[in-house]
């Protein structure tokens, strides 16, 4: 194990190299560019034997990955915001064709207006795409999840592509300490990809047939069941990784929740800042905690409910909006998780749209705003910090 200071994007590129990826399809878009730049260097230098395919659009990037995965190759791509939006047609297809691959989504806000900065509007666009989705909180996590992603998605019990949401700039461009895992351990943890079906003239298959209404629902149900049941494999593989590296990832991670009356719920790196605020408030004797939601799809209903037992009010930090709808996407999901059950009341804060920064003071302010907002009712959400 080597501990180095790495930019988040470089850590991802290192992981792709160590995962012995076969095909990398890449179209540059801020803030993903450092990943693909580093990868092209890694391939050009011979450090990684892979085909680097500089495609002419994001739509083609994922299409190349599909073609490659269908032939039994380990494929990787990364994109952000508007690039994901262009790619979206194919995102849904990759998962419904049950083709393993890993994509890092460097979260960036969707246009318009044009902005290169970070929020989760791009992630929410593909919320229902059928991919396994995780939100990472650090460069180390992003690095680790590349290996986890391939191991899980290639498992024959799963065969679902794996999306790693990584906050643009905050995680992609920040330099953090990262522990690089020894190649020998990686090779044991992640053997070469053995596809269940592949395009092979010695055993011809047809992939992507059209399906009529009398059979389509069965295909979709099979897909939904596969995503739900992948939960077990995810837990199993994350546990194994913990045994190997000491880093145990769980679908949700709680801090100070045992006796918390109020709790923040965060998705992605903003939770790191909220954590500081929670520590500060605890110092002041406030019964407040934090839940970091890591596994987004399949949604960890049971673990979420268990972790939040006893919490009276949940302050959700939403990094995207549902215009004209009842709130931010994460708040909606969490409210659903507790529907017709005993659970916390949810206060929905829309925070950090297009990369607007927050400080621990902001979370303290939100904590102070919460009681009044609880009076207002569930359809209310607050754009925190917006100039009126």
């Amino acid at each position, binding site marked *: 194990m080597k501990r180095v200071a790495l930019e988040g994007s470089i850590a991802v590129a290192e992981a792709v190299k160590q995962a012995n990826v076969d095909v990398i399809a890449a179209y540059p878009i801020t803030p993903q560019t450092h990943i693909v730049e580093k990868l092209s260097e890694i391939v050009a230098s011979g450090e990684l034997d892979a085909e680097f395919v500089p495609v002419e659009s994001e739509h083609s990037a994922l299409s190349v990955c599909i073609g490659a995965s269908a032939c039994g190759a380990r494929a990787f791509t990364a994109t952000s915001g508007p690039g994901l939006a262009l790619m979206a047609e194919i995102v849904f297809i990759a998962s419904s064709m049950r083709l393993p691959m890993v994509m890092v989504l460097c979260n960036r806000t969707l246009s318009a207006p044009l902005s290169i900065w970070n929020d989760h509007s791009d992630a929410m666009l593909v919320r229902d795409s059928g991919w396994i989705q995780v939100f990472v909180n650090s460069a180390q996590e992003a690095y680790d999840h590349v290996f986890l992603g391939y191991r899980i998605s290639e498992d024959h019990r799963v065969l679902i592509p794996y999306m790693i949401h990584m906050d643009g700039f905050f995680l992609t461009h920040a330099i953090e300490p990262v522990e690089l895992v020894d190649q020998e351990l990686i090779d044991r943890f992640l053997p070469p990809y053995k596809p269940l079906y592949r395009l092979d003239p010695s055993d*011809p298959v047809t992939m992507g047939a059209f399906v009529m209404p009398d059979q389509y629902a069965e295909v979709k149900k099979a897909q939904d069941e596969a995503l739900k049941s992948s939960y077990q494999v995810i837990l199993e593989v994350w546990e194994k990784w913990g045994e190997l590296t000491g880093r145990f990832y769980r679908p949700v991670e709680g801090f100070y929740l045992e006796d918390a009356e109020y709790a923040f719920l965060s998705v992605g790196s903003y939770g790191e800042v909220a954590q500081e605020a929670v520590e500060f408030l605890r110092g002041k004797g406030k019964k407040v905690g934090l839940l970091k939601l890591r596994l987004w799809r399949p949604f960890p209903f049971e673990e979420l409910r268990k972790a939040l037992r006893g919490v009276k009010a949940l302050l959700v930090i939403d990094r995207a909006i549902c215009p004209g709808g009842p709130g931010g996407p994460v708040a909606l999901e969490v409210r659903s998780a507790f529907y017709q059950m005993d659970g916390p009341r949810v206060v929905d804060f829309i925070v950090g749209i297009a990369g607007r920064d927050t400080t621990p003071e902001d979370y303290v302010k939100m904590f102070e705003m919460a009681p009044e907002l609880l009076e207002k009712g569930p359809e209310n959400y607050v754009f925190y910090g917006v100039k009126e």
Partner: protein
Amino acid sequence: MKELEKIRFTRKNLPREEYFFPGHRGCQGCGEALALRLAMKALGKDTIVASATGCIEIISSPFPETAWGVPWIHVAFENTAAVISGVEAALKVLTRKGRIPEKRIFCVGVAGDGGTADIGLQALSGALERGHDILYLCFDNEAYMNTGIQRSSATPFGAWTTTSPPGKKAKGQMTWKKNLPEIAIAHNIPYVATASPAYPYDLMNKVRRGAEIKGPAYVHIFSPCPTGWRCPSNLSIEVARLAVETGVFPLFEVIEGKWRINQPKGELKPVEDYLKLQGRFRHLDEETIKFIQKRVTEEWEKLKKKASLFPYEE
């Protein structure tokens, strides 16, 4: 890698195996299905095909049945060239890494005129520029036939389609057919050719040659559609022959930038011989037919000039 023996098809060695099987849902007399059947004979079993959404994809893959005898993948409408690029990249690296045995497998993209000239043009251009070892076959039935005969940029001048109907204010398709072979040639790829199922051995040899050549190859295949062109189902081949004989769809190859015209010898027949067989041209007035004839003759002269400037010498 051992060099493939270059196969040239004649009556004597016409392959009897089918890789595009009967039971497909193509219309009676479908020129596209025939052209595809012949192309697959030329390619043989060591082929992987990526198809666009369209007639070929729909008639050949009604779950749970498939008409394909080779590995086949359909993903979407506009990304055939990107998907087959991914296949090619995968085979390349997996062979290099020793994970699959070293074997020449043809990577073939199959798309219609809509999926190539319009929505698929970007992906095609990208794939050709990147120089993948692929063969791209455009089966041109001159409209979006699968969705009900709507116009594409490959619809010929004057043709009726459901979105270019003649009327008081319009005369049918009012733009000239987009020249896809020229676009492919502009990418400086090793092989570009046009083919027609009325010349089956020529078609098979061009498909084979495109597959064998290292690097990107593009073959544009004229695919008569009796349903959309409004002609009897038994005239598909005659129409495909007349298209060549009138110069509407000339047969030529461009090999490493050098031109070779494969037209049958003799003067070009008048375009009217070709147009009058098809209901989609029934509304044309004399003025429009004259215009079409003039333009076809001009294009033919241009083609001959280019071929004389950069002739292919064996």
